[in-house]
């Protein structure tokens, strides 16, 4: 294809001649809306561009969002990149889109109501029954249902494409549980930080009012009798591709993020399993697709909340969107929206791409005749909303076998297949390493529906597409922020400004889903364990590097305790057989192996760090944005440790450990700071304290107890260094490490944040503040038992320092036993009393 005369403002930017470009007109002149941005871009050197992209990546990472919704499991996802260049749309053009989208929402809502109600459209054959009944989102359970305010759609999204003639077309309606709002929000936050001056000058419309509207829309989805409805975001959980968005959105809207297991249905209402018992829920922002809503009313699935479908039908809870709304998300229904509009006496302002449903014999034969002219979709394969990998292909790219299969499918089950004409779509400037280049862009527009009407997000989520792959299949990759210019006086105000707000009436402070509580607990434990591992290993390394002879000295009397200690911290069974390696292993290898276990293997630091970020992301609403940045950096270090560091003595190791420790400190700071001292924080604290207590004990068990007179001072130094208490120790006892002093500092001293006594005090305080449940008092007892063990070491005579026959200090061993047992029981009890999550144990039973 010929390139047109290049852009007047963007040197080297040459969109295809026969296409439409957002920024540049046919003769290369910059379109008005783009002038300001293009000028800004024109000033950038390639270096600037690279720098902006780096900054964008960093900021996206900082938001904790490395991945856009994608196909497979969380780990196999493609990275999310934000193109520093936004997609700019003029206010007037936007107004048309706005009107078109609003109209579609109205019509789709009526269609859904009809499908599950009177079925006029079906009886009159406006909608072919096979298209509807065959739609993956079609829900028998929704039949005869009347959602609150008889409104089915609260949230709607559409993917739009612009044709070569400049007109917008709908690629797909998303009416079940549309995603994108959260991503749009992230993109805006990032681009606002990245191009602040441009943002200020161009003043794209703010997204904030839209989210206010979203809250209203959700409130409006509540059953009529709920004056101040309580909403939660219902997500399938960590495994879900757009889990990030769920948690991000929840955090932004100030709602709890819950999974189906956190909810129960009783007496026709929905309740949240919370720390303080069951709490009533009025609205679910539903991000699980309608097939996974209720296992009782789904023939196969285990997923969902038993009884939820009936609760919804009985208006015991509002679902946004209502059960079954997904029916119109099927591409088989897409072509008939226009007909429905006509039936309702309207003309579609924003039509769909030409889409042929093969359920219609004419289309069927036309498509079979010229397979290669079309893009083929198997709607059944698309899933409710097609976020999963869609069996969509270019007819032209089929090999004979695939061709055969499609022909079979179209002949035997025509209702499943739709075909769209291949077309060239509009392009927009995209930053590439090679400079600014044109790229095909699909625009996801979002709208919410409240009592006051429909509000369309002034902006949205644009995705840069690879024209050589069917667009429906492209679910991740590069995105763009979307800027709508405020160049229109008559712009309607967001509905949130048209209503009086109700004062906050539900106080969620003390409310905490048990799942979140558990997550916070594990955030604490993993953070603490990571630090312990890092410090112990780094201390061991530096001591050995200072005096390698220690490895062999005293016939391993120094080495063995240290090695055992490292394995214990990593919770890995020590390979040492009664303290000795098989003779084939050299002391050096034995030591290296231990270091590797603690620092490099999944069992060690990388494992605990991974656990840390996983736990954190399932309690995101309690984790501040800054914290995500730090977690991000820790993630990076984790991969480095796992991958790069080949050898324990690699000089990179110590450097990495420093970074890890520094970031863990920031983490501690961030958690202390600007975190409400509510139950969530309390469980975090409990987790930290429990783990630190266990770590200290493990060190005493493995390192202190067997320290012989010869190795004692270097071993004790190691213990102190591992607990970051060397300085404190030196400041207080000017002596070389002495047992009693060591115990005093690390066990008895309730002012030293590293000491056991300190941890026990904290635990005691935190438990006292937890909502009491049966078994809570047991927790307190366990702490008291653990504290009681301190008398064992209340004052240590020099006899206590003597090694017993087994080469260990009996006093220490007795003490460790006495303290550790109740602590472990404490952890178990905590799990029993507060985290006991029945959903793990649920099972489905059938009967003939």
């Amino acid at each position, binding site marked *: 294809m010929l390139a047109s005369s290049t852009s007047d403002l963007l040197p080297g930017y040459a969109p295809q001649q026969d296409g439409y470009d957002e920024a540049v007109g046919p003769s290369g002149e910059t379109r008005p809306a783009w002038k300001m941005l293009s000028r800004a871009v024109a000033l950038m050197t390639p270096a600037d561009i690279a720098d902006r992209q780096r900054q964008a990546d960093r900021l996206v990472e900082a938001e904790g969002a490395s991945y856009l919704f994608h196909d497979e499991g969380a780990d196999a996802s493609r990275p999310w990149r934000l193109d520093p260049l936004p997609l700019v749309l003029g206010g007037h053009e936007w107004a048309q889109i706005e009107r078109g989208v609003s109209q579609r929402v109205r019509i789709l809502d009526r269609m859904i109501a009809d499908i599950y109600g009177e079925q006029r459209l079906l009886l009159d054959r406006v909608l072919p029954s096979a298209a509807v009944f065959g739609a993956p989102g079609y829900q028998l359970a929704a039949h005869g249902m009347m959602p609150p305010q008889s409104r089915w759609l609260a949230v709607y999204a559409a993917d739009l494409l612009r044709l070569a003639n400049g007109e917008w077309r709908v690629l797909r309606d998303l009416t079940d549980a549309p995603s994108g709002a959260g991503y749009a929000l992230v993109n805006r936050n990032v681009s606002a930080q990245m191009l602040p001056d441009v943002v200020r000058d161009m003043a794209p419309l*703010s997204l904030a009012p839209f989210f206010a509207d979203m809250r209203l829309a959700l409130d409006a989805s509540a059953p009529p009798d709920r004056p101040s409805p309580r909403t939660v975001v219902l997500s399938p959980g960590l495994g879900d591709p757009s889990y990030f968005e769920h948690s991000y959105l929840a955090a932004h809207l100030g709602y709890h993020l819950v999974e189906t297991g956190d909810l129960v249905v009783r007496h026709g209402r929905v309740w949240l399993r919370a720390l303080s018992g069951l709490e009533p829920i009025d609205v679910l922002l539903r991000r699980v697709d309608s097939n996974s809503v209720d296992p009782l009313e789904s023939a196969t699935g285990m997923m969902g909340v038993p009884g939820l479908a009936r609760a919804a039908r009985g208006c015991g809870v509002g679902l946004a969107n209502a059960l079954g709304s997904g029916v119109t998300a099927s591409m088989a229904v897409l072509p008939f929206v226009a007909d429905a509009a006509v039936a309702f006496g309207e003309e579609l302002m924003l039509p769909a791409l030409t889409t042929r449903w093969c359920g219609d014999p004419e289309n069927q034969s036309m498509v079979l005749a010229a397979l290669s002219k079309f893009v083929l979709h198997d709607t059944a394969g698309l899933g409710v909303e097609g976020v999963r990998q869609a069996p969509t292909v270019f007819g032209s790219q089929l090999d004979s076998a695939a061709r055969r299969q499609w022909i079979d499918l179209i002949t035997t089950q025509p209702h499943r297949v739709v075909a769209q004409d291949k077309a060239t779509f509009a392009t927009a400037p995209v930053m590439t390493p090679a400079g600014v280049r044109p790229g095909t862009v699909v625009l996801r527009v979002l709208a919410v529906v409240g009592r006051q009407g429909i509000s369309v997000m002034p902006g949205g989520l644009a995705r840069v597409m690879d024209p050589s792959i069917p667009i429906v299949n492209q679910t991740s990759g590069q995105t763009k922020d979307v800027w709508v210019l405020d160049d229109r006086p008559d712009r309607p105000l967001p509905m949130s400004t048209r209503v009086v707000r109700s004062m906050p009436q539900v106080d969620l402070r003390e409310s905490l889903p048990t799942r979140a509580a558990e997550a916070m607990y594990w955030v604490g434990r993993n953070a603490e364990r990571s630090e312990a591992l890092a410090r112990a290993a780094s201390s061991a390394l530096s001591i050995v590097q200072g005096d390698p002879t220690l490895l062999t000295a005293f016939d391993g009397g120094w080495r063995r305790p240290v090695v055992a200690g490292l394995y214990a911290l990593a919770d890995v069974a020590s390979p040492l057989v009664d303290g000795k390696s098989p003779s084939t292993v050299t002391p050096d290898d034995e030591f290296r192996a231990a270091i590797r276990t603690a620092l490099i293997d999944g069992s060690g630091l990388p494992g605990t760090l991974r656990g840390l970020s996983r736990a954190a992301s399932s309690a995101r609403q309690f984790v501040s944005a800054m914290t995500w940045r730090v977690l991000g950096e820790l993630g990076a270090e984790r991969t480095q440790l796992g991958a790069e560091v080949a050898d324990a003595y690699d000089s990179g190791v110590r450097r990495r450990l420093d970074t890890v420790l520094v970031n863990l*400190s920031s983490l501690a700071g961030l958690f202390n700071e600007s975190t409400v001292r509510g139950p969530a924080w309390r469980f975090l604290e409990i987790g930290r304290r429990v783990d630190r207590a266990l770590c200290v004990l493990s060190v005493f068990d493995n390192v202190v107890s067997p320290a012989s007179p010869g190795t004692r001072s270097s071993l004790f130094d190691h213990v102190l260094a591992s607990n970051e208490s060397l300085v404190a120790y030196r400041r207080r006892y000017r002596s070389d490490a002495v047992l009693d002093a060591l115990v005093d500092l690390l066990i008895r001293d309730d002012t030293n*944040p590293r000491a056991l006594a300190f941890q026990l005090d904290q635990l005691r305080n935190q438990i006292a503040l937890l909502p009491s449940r049966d078994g809570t008092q047991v927790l307190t007892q366990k702490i008291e038992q653990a504290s009681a063990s301190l008398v064992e070491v209340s004052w240590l005579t020099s006899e206590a320092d003597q090694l017993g026959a087994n080469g260990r200090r009996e006093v220490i061993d007795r003490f460790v036993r006495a303290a550790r047992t109740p602590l472990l029981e404490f952890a178990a009890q905590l799990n029993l009393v507060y985290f006991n999550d029945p959903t793990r144990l649920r099972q489905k039973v059938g009967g003939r």
Partner: protein
Amino acid sequence: MALLSRVAEQLYWGARYIERAEDTVRVVRAYTDVLVDLPTSVTTSWEPLLAITGTRALHDAHHDRVDEASVIHFLVADDANPNCIVHAVAAARENLRSAREVLPRDAWQVVNDMYLYVAAHRSDGVSRRSRSRFAERVIADSQRLDGILSGQMSRDHAYEFLRLGQAMERADMTTRVLGVRAAALVESGADVYAEVQWMGVLRSLSALQMYQRATNSPINGMSVIDFLLHDRAFPRSVMSCLQAIRDGLARLPRGDQLAPVIAEVFATAAQVSGDAVDGAELDAETDLLQSALAGLNNAIISTYVGVLD
């Protein structure tokens, strides 16, 4: 180990200056964000930033214009402003430097880091494009320090003085923000962009997320004010700062001597009404609180430091 009076004072001020730097950065960043969220049509002024940091007079003495460029430069890097971020960090370092031997080693490293960074990147703090990067770094370092202190430092007297300084500064900053931004907003009444503005207020105290968690509902002026004043669970609210100060003093020798003073501050704080509908009134009340805090500050110094010859 006995804590030197001089060192106690240096810790106290060191902590205050670090906190001041962080708070200023937060306020600046949040304010910039708000402006980004507001359409050009809405006219915006940079004066509030000066008012919040209480440097209006000083600024006008050196600059004839009050626009973004001059205000931000003044707050971040202007040598004429002893409270500007660059100077605050330097002052913190200078104080902690001679109190170094009572700090965990990492703590000093962070302060030193922070100083080196801020000194080298003062211009980044001013330029709009790099401002957020600069802010992030300052906040991150300050958080890191906080983490190290709570994780590694014995709960000894030195620790108490650091926390005392931090709490005093926070109480001070929160009060200022309430007195200036909040008061102004209450005055102007609920306009279209009130929500955006209030968000700004919360963000500048890194309270947005926590506020939303606490009150699952749209942002509402009155409840924001109440949250920032009285919420005992939110570490930056005036009340929890005062609480922290009271507890801290209780753990210090002769802390009881200060009981009356702190009691008075509590009383004053209690008088500030969360449901003030009249901006001017709110402003006035926070002024009282300000001076009460100043009184407490002096009382602390004279009790533990006295006059050094």
